[in-house]
């Protein structure tokens, strides 16, 4: 992507003032998206993101500089400008850039950029028509189809040079139902690290119907009374509870400064013994996977919590130095515009032994959160909140009427201890996680599980 001789010279310039490590991240990405609303193309856009990020360490202090220029002089200038923030003498660091071959474990049968846009539009129109015609209550449908081919190269003063290609495809289907001057939404957003064949193989009909069905159920729903209840969170995107409430606190970014509630808790009980949680960046063609992380380390499968005992964190190189622990391939970034840091990939709670039916039958009164929305967390306090997109009251062990507008709040470390039933229907959901190093694709996942008591905001 860039001549190795130029990379070599830029890295040398970056450590010319005493830095003890430098790294370059070169990105050449091609993105395309089609947005379709109300039976018409709302916008179609495609383009090329190109840029180079240079990172320099001096101890655990980090400098990051980026530019869109690919010219040698500009790159050297950028590296020197960054290096000028360090005032020291050049150390004796010698390296020889050696290409390390990436073992690609993901299949990309059809590249999205060779698919005719008219064929893409046909899929979109089919989704739109299916969702819109599902019921007279559906007043609007929006479809989005996005793809990205991200070509990256990473080089550093350890002598590493590695290249990789990541291909992403995603479709979003959002339905709006209207009734009595009120509107409610339903949506579904499957995505992959993989080729366009993922989109072609999706059952667009049932996905579109499901989006509309949620909107209709919710526009016909009442509100739940605010209070503290047992809550059953169903599988798939329900895993957002673990992602927000605990996952962020297990990222080295939060742990290294000692501000996470999980800092200094390795080997200690942090969750109910029913909970085993894993972050796995190596799952084939999953949304949050990559062959290598954004520092060039191979991604790994990491057991975070085993039977309630804390086993490990997600660690990047810089925070690893702060914590005196090795990186475990968890460093990610949105693009060359961001310095990478420890992030989640595909993070899920593993299967337990109960069926969803058993969990519901065992609950006298509570909330069944069939579909979760997003949420957020304060990593220092562990306080989280997240929205229930599709919810139902559970009464006497049976699903009762639908409810809307519920929000769950609590503290991550507390809620983990309150998980008292774990199901056996593990599934993944696709999300975009926003944090310090930008917005990245991340899978959340879990089987259905029950939290014994949680504060539910209703009306």
């Amino acid at each position: 992507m860039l001549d190795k001789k130029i990379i070599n010279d830029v890295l040398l310039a970056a450590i010319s003032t005493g830095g003890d490590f430098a790294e370059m991240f070169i990105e050449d990405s091609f993105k395309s998206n089609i947005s379709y609303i109300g039976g018409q193309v709302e916008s179609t856009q495609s383009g090329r993101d190109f840029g180079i990020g240079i990172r320099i360490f001096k101890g655990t202090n980090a400098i990051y500089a980026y530019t869109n220029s690919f010219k040698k002089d500009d790159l050297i200038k950028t590296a020197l400008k960054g290096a000028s923030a360090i005032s020291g003498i050049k150390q004796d660091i010698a390296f020889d850039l050696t290409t390390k071959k990436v073992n690609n474990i993901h299949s990309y049968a059809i590249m999205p950029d060779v698919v005719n846009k008219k064929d893409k539009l046909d899929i979109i129109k089919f989704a739109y028509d299916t969702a819109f015609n599902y019921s007279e209550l559906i007043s609007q449908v929006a479809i989005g189809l996005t793809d990205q081919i991200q070509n990256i190269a990473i080089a550093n003063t350890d002598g590493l040079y590695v290249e990789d290609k990541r291909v992403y495809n995603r479709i979003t289907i959002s339905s709006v139902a209207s009734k009595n001057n009120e509107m409610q939404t339903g949506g579904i957003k499957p995505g992959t690290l993989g080729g366009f064949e993922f989109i072609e193989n999706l059952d667009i009909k049932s996905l579109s119907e499901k989006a509309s069905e949620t909107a209709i159920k919710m526009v016909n729903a009442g509100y739940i009374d605010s209070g503290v209840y047992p809550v059953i969170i169903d599988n798939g995107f329900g895993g957002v509870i673990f992602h927000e409430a605990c996952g962020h606190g297990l990222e080295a970014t939060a742990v290294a400064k000692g501000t996470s509630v999980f800092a200094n808790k390795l080997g200690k009980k942090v969750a109910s013994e029913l909970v085993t949680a894993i972050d796995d960046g190596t799952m084939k063609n999953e949304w949050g996977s990559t062959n290598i992380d954004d520092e060039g380390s191979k991604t790994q499968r990491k057991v975070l919590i085993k039977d309630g005992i804390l086993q490990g964190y997600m660690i990047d190189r810089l925070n690893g130095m702060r914590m005196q622990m090795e990186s475990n391939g968890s460093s990610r970034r949105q693009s060359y515009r961001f310095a990478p840091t420890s992030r989640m990939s595909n993070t899920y709670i593993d299967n337990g032994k109960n069926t969803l039916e058993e969990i519901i039958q065992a609950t006298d009164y509570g909330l069944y959160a069939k579909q979760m929305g997003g949420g957020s967390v304060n990593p220092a306090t562990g306080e989280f909140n997240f929205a229930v997109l599709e919810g139902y009251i559970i009464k006497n062990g049976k699903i009762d009427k639908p409810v809307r507008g519920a929000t769950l709040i609590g503290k991550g470390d507390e809620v983990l201890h309150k998980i008292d039933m774990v199901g056996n229907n593990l599934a993944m959901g696709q999300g975009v996680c926003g944090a310090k190093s930008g917005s990245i694709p991340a899978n959340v996942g879990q089987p259905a599980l029950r939290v014994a008591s949680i504060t539910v905001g209703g009306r």
Partner: protein
Amino acid sequence: MNEYKILIEQLFKKAAKNSITDMEAYFREGERFSVNIYKGEIEDYKLSNSIGLGFRGFYNGKIGYSYTEKVSEDSFDMLIKDVKENATINDSEDYEVIYEGSKHYENVKTYNEELDKVTEVEKIQFAKDMEKYAYELDKRVKACQGCLFSSGTSNVIIMNNKGLYLNEKSNGAFSYIFLAVGDDKEISTGFEFVISNDFTKYNAKNMATKAVNDAIKMLGAKSIKSGNRKILLEARISADLLATIQGIFSARAVQKGVSMLKGKLNKQVANKCVTLVDNPFLENGSASSAFDGEGVATKYKKIIENGILKTYLYNLKTAIKDGVESTGNASRDSYKSTIGIAPSNLYFDRGDKTFAQLVEEVKDGVYITDLDGMHSGFSTISGDFSLGAKGFLIENGKLSYAINQITVSGNYFELLNNIESVGNDLLFSSSGTGSPSLIIKDLAIAGE
């Protein structure tokens, strides 16, 4: 800049040969600096210079978009191919236009040369001071998770083949401190920020003091019983809510039937005491500009006046569809964006009551100082929200103990009608929207 003007002219020439008729380039060049301090040392130091070129044009009567960050002649073929391909599948019946220009553009000050004279050393020192003050103020300050100063300068060119050439240089800066206080038993956090392109508006001690005090006040916070309560909404929190839902004022949302304000023009949508302003000429406003994303001259307007909805926000496409003039609200976040609609500096006009008067007026209720989860717990279509909250109890017209682990729920359209009083303390949030403190008749609280 001239070098890029010439490059764009070359692109236009090549595109014209490739059957692209009306066309426009949106070019942005920028420089940014930011520094984050941790325990007295530079933890993050970030520099960038970036350029990007957005290109849109008509092919066979339909518009297509493309962009590149590799701004050189060897990207021309890709830009032209993408525009043609995207235009080919564009089946929209709405008419987008390449604009020939407005008669008059207001003189808006978007660049402050004094800011560019502030050295990196001074900016780093500012962030270091802020952190130092925070630790000195109270022993319970455990860590500053963020202690940042950032500044940047950018240059935007909008240029088309209908004779329009607009150029705007702007600069800005922001700073924040985010810290945790507490002991082994309990932790709470505080946050304070300033956004301004006037360096004299940054006071390290004041910012540190505000963040520390806010965090300390929350120690010992507890939940309260569930129920409906009268609410005093802190100014910046109200501004954040407004920022989240501002899309309802977009004519696009109205035309697409996804705004509850459809059919509400010239009708009462808020209490009489509410006036909502969109002011692109606001001094030191983060969204101040003489022209919008399509090159149309911007305008000052009241969207809601004394509770009555007076206008939606328009770009050219939606204005043509409704047979009105553009309100100068075409948005273009960057060269990567297609044309959308967004307010400029959007804010609720101030009232005349002091904060103390508002607290007294609430008498018994809850003062909300923090809301979490706006991107997930707030449906911008239905207006329903259910959000994690923090604040203080108000008893007998006085602020009482701190509250956390509660949620606040309601509907924004109802909230607008239930605004009983407006404070005189207009503040802008980090999202760029503004509001004074507001008294809301009631909202549902979930606690114990």
